[in-house]
């Protein structure tokens, strides 16, 4: 009998250091584990615990997937202490993910902060895989310090194909890009407000101020796609932890357009 609360085993093949606090975990998925970009999984360390993460790899690759994880607490610390090879558990994928079809033939502005770049990397790779549908991509990334910026090599590659602007809150002597929070690099100079979408993922505080700034710049509620981070246990719309207004974020999200959220009094709590 299928038990929806139990994970399937996955083999951890490789661990890649991204920054002092962030690592990418690569899993092989011979048993055909697939996800859509923006969907999340519950990753578990048997006997220790489980936490929700959004895969950061290209969803078109069927033989492996990657998850980029920041060390912030009990489970993530245990994950960071792992050595390969190891067997972990995975449930999912859960949620709806990014509605790629809605982005077709539009300008796509992608705004990310901190470990929020993880889901966005998967999105960017999915968009790059269909260059005929998604031509006009603009990246705006922020990090606390240059050392905290992840995927540096890849970002270099991406900036060759699309417009990419970086910023850090606090620079060091080698930093040549912008300094300031991510909202300071948001503008509409190369954006056609009538035919664009904007996708935001980052720490809650950054999402809030980015949303305010985007509205101020003239983006419409429906054009702004936000990833809501809520406490989650089941991922299945059953445990009740992730509720906001009439939604279970795990099932009706985690990505929402702002028009669905704006009237909820607790949206920025």
């Amino acid at each position, binding site marked *: *009998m299928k038990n*929806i609360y139990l994970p399937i085993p996955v083999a951890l093949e490789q661990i890649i250091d991204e920054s002092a606090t962030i690592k990418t975990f690569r899993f092989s998925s011979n048993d055909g584990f697939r996800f859509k970009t923006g969907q999340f999984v519950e990753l578990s360390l048997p006997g220790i615990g489980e936490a929700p993460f959004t895969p950061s790899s290209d969803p078109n690759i069927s033989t492996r997937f990657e998850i980029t994880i920041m060390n912030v607490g009990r489970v993530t610390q245990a994950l960071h202490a792992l050595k390969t090879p190891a067997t972990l558990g995975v449930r999912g994928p859960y949620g709806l993910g990014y509605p790629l079809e809605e982005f077709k033939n539009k300008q796509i502005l992608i705004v990310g902060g901190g470990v929020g770049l993880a889901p966005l990397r998967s999105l960017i790779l999915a968009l790059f895989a269909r260059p005929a549908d998604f031509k006009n991509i603009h990246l705006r990334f922020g990090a606390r310090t240059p050392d905290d910026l992840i995927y540096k090599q890849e970002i270099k590659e991406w900036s060759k194909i699309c417009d990419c602007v970086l910023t850090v809150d606090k620079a060091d002597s080698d930093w040549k890009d912008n300094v300031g929070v991510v909202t300071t690099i948001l503008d509409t100079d190369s954006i056609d407000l009538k035919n664009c979408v904007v996708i935001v993922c980052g720490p809650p505080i950054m999402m809030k101020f980015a949303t305010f700034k985007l509205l101020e710049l003239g983006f419409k509620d429906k054009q702004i796609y936000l990833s809501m981070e809520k406490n989650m246990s089941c991922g299945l*719309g059953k*445990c009740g932890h992730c509720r906001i207004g009439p939604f279970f974020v795990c*099932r009706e999200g985690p990505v929402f357009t702002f028009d669905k959220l704006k009237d909820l*009094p607790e949206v920025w709590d």
Partner: protein
Amino acid sequence: MERFFYLQAKYLKDFLSFIAKNHRLFICQAKEDDYYYVQFSEGLEPVFNAYRTFEPLKSLIVPAKERIDNLNPSKEKPLAVFNPKHCDLNALAIQDFIFLGQKPKFASVEDLDVDTSYEQRRKNLLIISGDCTGYKEVCWCLGMGLKPYPESGYDINLSFIDTGYVLEFSTGKGRLALKGFERRMTKPTNEQMHKREHKRSKIIADMQNSLPELYPGPVEAMQQAVKQGFNSASWKEFMLTCVECGGCNFICDTCHCFLLSDEKRGKENARLKLWDACLYANFAKVAGGANPLDTRAKRLRNRYMKKFDFFPDNLGKYACCGCGRCIEVCPGKIDIRKILKTLHNELLVKK
């Protein structure tokens, strides 16, 4: 097929023994002025509980703490329960909605996941409910628009009338469970059926006459009262005595929140499913320490938003059956009826 039978009181034990042959049957035992479920055994004297049990009905299907990685409910003997009340049956609809994956209005997906353990137990559960023959001071089912006798959701219902019970079959499952026992029962007389109706009206009248806190506000307006009251200053007053014990959540028949937890048991890894409480400080806390429900007032309000806004929006039904259990267990004497009444009054002032 006959829907109604009459069962003499002296045969109640035989009736329950008959059910217990093929079921894991839970019946009530009285302790002071409360009733508790215990598993039936021949040595026990059956009790026809006058009102709902202390513990919620959900606890028989979804235990407070259960190891789930080695679970196989299809091998379990079917459950039967005697005798939950209308409030309990109504609350079960909330648990069903969540765990059987019924489609909420706001869900954007069609194929919702089913908790198969719940499904298995629920499918086999035989519900032998009963009319309330008494009530507690905290009972306010009428205020939630529910009668003190079952109207749906049971397989068999018993209505006590002086010397016996009017037994009503509502499902084929109920009939099947009593196949072979019918000859111990008779066809109820008109007078017996009349008595049942009389008892039913009388208990409603009694409750209306003796319970001052029965109606905290019109049931249709509850969602509006809670929604409009989101920013009410009263939440801070309501929660002053909350000690964050989670009792109101755990004792509530409609609360469904839980937590999955992993632990090591010797060399084995175990996964547990535990009831969780939204009144606990960490319920909504996310990594890095941010907490959308960072005050007791927000947590208390969250419980009401879930019951009186989320559920009517998604299911068209309040997630409260007026059982009053939360009023009884709260060490802070926080009373759902008083909270709703205050919010209703504030709504009237606004208008």
